[in-house]
């Protein structure tokens, strides 16, 4: 699970703001999020590190240090957005080996990577990170209704893309 409330609680304080401790606590979770949002392992690694450097630099300015994980997620989303403004999403092309299940998984990853980043982020936050829509809205800088709308559109597009690739 990604940075659940329980795991967030007090972690930043326990870390005493030390970068390496924070990295140990949150680095892996953040990389998982980055991977789901980009579909590319190498890119996820880069974005994780960059997000950490950027977010850790602001740690001293945070009013509530317990919000550091949320701030990390927000930083990551912004970096994913900035990255895809410059580049087209290219999920890593892992061979599927011809298995039906793996083909479907491959198609789903391609379909997910093809969604606009806000839809992708909203879907990852709900179905992977189990974040409430309110927090997703805060991260994406929009209203809760917009989050619900983004998820609905994203799921609809995913379904269409999966059906299309399934028919090919």
């Amino acid at each position, binding site marked *: 699970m990604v940075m659940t409330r329980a795991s967030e609680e007090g972690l930043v304080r326990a870390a005493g703001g030390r970068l390496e401790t924070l990295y140990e606590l949150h680095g*892996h979770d953040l990389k998982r999020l980055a991977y789901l949002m980009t579909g590319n392992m190498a890119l996820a*690694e880069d974005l994780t590190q960059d997000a950490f450097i950027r977010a850790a630099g602001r740690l001293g300015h945070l009013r509530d240090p317990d919000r550091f994980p949320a701030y990390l997620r927000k930083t990551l989303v912004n970096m994913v957005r900035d990255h895809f403004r410059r580049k*087209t999403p290219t999920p890593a092309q892992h061979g599927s080996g011809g298995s039906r299940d793996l083909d479907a998984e491959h198609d789903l990853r391609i379909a997910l990577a093809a969604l606009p980043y806000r839809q992708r982020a909203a879907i990852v936050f709900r179905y992977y990170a189990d974040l409430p829509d309110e927090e997703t809205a805060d991260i994406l800088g929009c209203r809760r209704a917009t989050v619900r709308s983004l998820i609905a559109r994203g799921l609809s597009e995913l379904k269409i893309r999966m059906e299309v690739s399934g*028919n090919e």
Partner: protein
Amino acid sequence: MNESELRERMHEWAARVPPPGPDPARIAGRGARRAARTIVAGIAAVALIAAGVFAAARTIQPDRPARLVTPPTTTGACDGPGLHLAQVYGTVNRIAGRYPTNVRNLIRWLYERSGPDEPRPTYGQWHQRDGDDAITVCVYEGLFDVPKGPPGGTPPPRTALSIFVPDREQPRLDSVGPGPFDWAYTPAPPGCHEGEPGCDELGLCKWETEAALPCGNGVEQGRAYRYRLWGHCGIRQAWFDGRLWQTDPPVDAPSDMVEGTMTLIAADEARFQVPGLDPITFRAQPPPTPALCD
């Protein structure tokens, strides 16, 4: 695929993600390296500015001719390098289309142009480039030789040829086909993007006059713009070129969000095209009559 399956898949993928590689010390070092890079970049910028001032001082001397700047190849790309390459393959009768665009749009077009039921490329040489790189797609009509025909038969005449001309680079052959070129899948300029004036967060045009193209006024007639329509209750109205448009009767939409191109055909007629669907014709609506007290 249902929601629980999606949730399950995502957790499976996430479980396979290895921990981030470098140790925290390297991360910290990376931050320091970044700071160092910033300082070096600052010094380089100062040096460049100084060099620019020096060059400008040299340029304004009357006895020293100004250096010529090579224009980008996208200016007249289809008449120059693109045409020369097309003529290698046969006789060109006319340039049927020129589409200045960027790599991002080109990739999208390559993905969609064959229609919904055809194989789609997922990765190619263009993915390795910056999405903002300028490129021109040139389409020529004429009679072109085919390097290899299908085995055991006479190849059909190839009357359309498309060439990509990246900015400041050699042109590249895209395809030679029987023609005519399918205009439904021509590369369109970007549509409404979230964050732009007049565009909502889903990339749909708001009904506002102060909006960026293609939502706002000033759309070029005959040019296909990428366009999204909300089709949950069928396709009925659209905001395009700063005006309200309507199709009557409403058309059933294949999905809630329909993505295609919108083209201004005439002053009061616009056409929405989606791969695999019949074109949808919209008519311009008169501006609403203001109420007496407005």
